[in-house]
């Protein structure tokens, strides 16, 4: 009897913590999302079913934000993966300064996202930004480019900033994955006459996929949830807003907690679907 109780007893604190800090807010947010609940109309709080979701899905503003989110997501995932893997490959080379290089590679990851955004704003700023100064200085352009003044150029800048912050984690995960592959496998493959490409395709790639999967999941969540960098680069402008900012504005600026909660759920579902997709596609049994 004692043996049966003890495991549950040991789990109790964690269940309580998870229940209070994770599951309760998730359930409460869902219940808010089914209500008309605007703080500026305290006398008109009522259950309205899925109307908030319908309104959001019919709103042009939401789909505009969704397009921006997808642009950032695709750019960030593709470039973070490519650059992260390349950085990992360089870090794998054993040189005298490996430790220092590794520390330098991690640096962007350690920066607070808002600081990251501010730093890059100095680079891309239209008037006296570093890049404009550089391009003007070498005579490449005659007028400053308004990098932050157009929708797509702004999204490109936001994506580059997020890639810069996400690459270190991806590189670390890939490096860990690469280092976990036993050297014997490569030796055996060489004895069997395997060439460089074949070894990469049949050993390195499949064995690293679960690690890349972890990196991809984290990168995707980062790309969907990017907020600080957008605010630092373009404020609360419509131009570069993503669905997280749309959710923030609805909830805390326009004080519409009902619609804001529904939007939060949509963001969460979007991230969840991506997470499941990655885990199912990349966490498969490996044959080599």
């Amino acid at each position, binding site marked *: 009897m004692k043996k049966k109780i*003890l495991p549950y007893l*040991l789990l109790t604190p964690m269940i309580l913590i998870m229940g209070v800090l994770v599951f309760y807010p998730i359930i409460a947010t869902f219940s808010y999302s089914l209500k008309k609940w605007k703080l500026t109309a*305290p006398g008109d709080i009522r259950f309205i079913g899925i109307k908030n979701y319908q309104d959001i899905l019919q709103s042009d503003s939401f789909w505009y934000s969704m397009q921006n989110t997808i642009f950032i997501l695709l750019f960030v995932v593709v470039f973070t993966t490519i650059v992260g893997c390349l950085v990992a490959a360089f870090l794998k080379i054993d040189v005298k300064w490996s430790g220092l290089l590794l520390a330098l590679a991690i640096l962007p990851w350690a920066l607070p996202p808002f600081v990251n955004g501010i730093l890059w704003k100095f680079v891309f*700023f*239209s008037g006296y930004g570093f890049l404009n100064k550089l391009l003007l200085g070498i005579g490449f352009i005659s007028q400053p480019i308004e990098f932050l003044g157009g929708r797509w150029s702004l999204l490109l800048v936001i994506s580059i900033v997020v890639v810069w912050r996400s690459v270190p984690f991806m590189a670390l995960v890939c490096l860990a994955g690469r280092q976990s592959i036993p050297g014997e496998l490569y030796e055996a493959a060489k004895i069997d006459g395997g060439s460089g490409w074949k070894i990469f395709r049949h050993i390195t790639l499949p064995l690293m996929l679960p690690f890349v999967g972890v990196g991809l999941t984290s990168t995707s969540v980062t790309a969907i949830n990017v907020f600080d960098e957008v605010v630092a680069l373009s*404020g609360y402008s*419509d131009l570069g807003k993503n669905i997280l900012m749309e959710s923030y504005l609805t909830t805390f600026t326009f004080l519409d907690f009902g619609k804001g909660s529904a939007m939060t759920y949509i963001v969460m579902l979007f991230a969840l679907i991506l997470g499941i997709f990655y885990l199912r596609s990349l966490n498969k049994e490996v044959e080599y």
Partner: protein
Amino acid sequence: MKKRWVSALLVFSMSIALVAGCAGNADKKDSAGGTKTEGDKITFMVPDWGVPTDEQLASFTEETGIEVEIAEVGWDDIREKLATAASAGKCAADVVEVDWSWVGEFYAADWLEPLEVSDEDKADMPTIETFTIDDKVLAMPYANDYRLAYYNTEQFAKAGITKEPQTWDDVLEACRALKSTGTVDHPFAIALNAEEKTSTCLMWLAYTMNGVVWNEDGRFNKESVLEALKYMETLINEELVAPEDKTSSGMDAYMRICGGTASFLTGPTSFVSRSQNEELCSVVGQIQPILVPGKEGKAAQTMPLPEAIGVNKLSENKEAAKKFVEWYTSADMQKQLNKTNSAIPTRNSVLEELINDGTIQNSGAMLEQAKIVSSPFPNGVPSYYAQMSSAMYNAINKMALGELNAEQAYDEMASALEELINE
């Protein structure tokens, strides 16, 4: 056996810690969820520039027996904290900062306790009108701000302009002359980024041009707003504003006058002191504060953008909170706050005294302008202000970036406002 005891002990201590954590401050809450003020103790949530000194607070406590706990919170975060607390029926603080732009929604949300203000005080503080809705005074202004015009006298003279601009047409012609003579490339400083300051720029421009921004029904006065938008469009198309003003913060755009890269600004009253601070201004002695131009002559009114403090309706200690508000916005405290926090007094009598005794220097038309402040909102700041302002600054920003023309920008903001009114 020993292992089991250790495990059980760990589980017990973690559970206790968890319960203790969840129950933190429980003794301070009352049954309604409000903050229970022990005896006469109140909390005051305010941004850094409004925090009174320890000596000032001590004198208040000595005078009234009320203790004040300061919650210094970033300006942006105050509204969010209040909203989050209020949504759970909690009192974030007994006395809270109330920006002019929040008052409509705070009133609609029923977060503020109406205050009793004497007619004498009302007459001395014209900006109180902004915080009055349905004849109820919801907050008392403590830091004054209203739109005042500034121009660089030396740059104007260099471009051959000897007279101070009287009308908006004069300003436009002066800017053209400043640009064509090569005196200043982008002489007009104005906020064009997608942020609150850009909305207020359109408001004061339309208001000083035509004396009206919104009609009685809450909709835009098309003629006035469109005229202001077209004026802005001209400034943008003729490159009289700097390209970076479209994406940099409104304050950065305003600060161009202190950097000497702009010659004309209609901006905050804080530029009276900024323009004399050698650390902030490279053209000290050249900037003159003047009355805001209008259509036929000087504008008959200007827009106030003050900050106030109000009493939280969920406060358990409303009387003590009201006493604090009265003390904090008294004439004596306004003088002290000007000295310690550089706050511009909201009482015209105090402002006049500080200008006359030389405390506020190079004030120019500051006092004269303070006497003609008037709210552009015919029915008070609306509860949907934040959404309306967001629609306004995004439309103006799109116009600045060349995505919309003035008519399209107007249509975009007018249709957003129509939706909000119908909602």
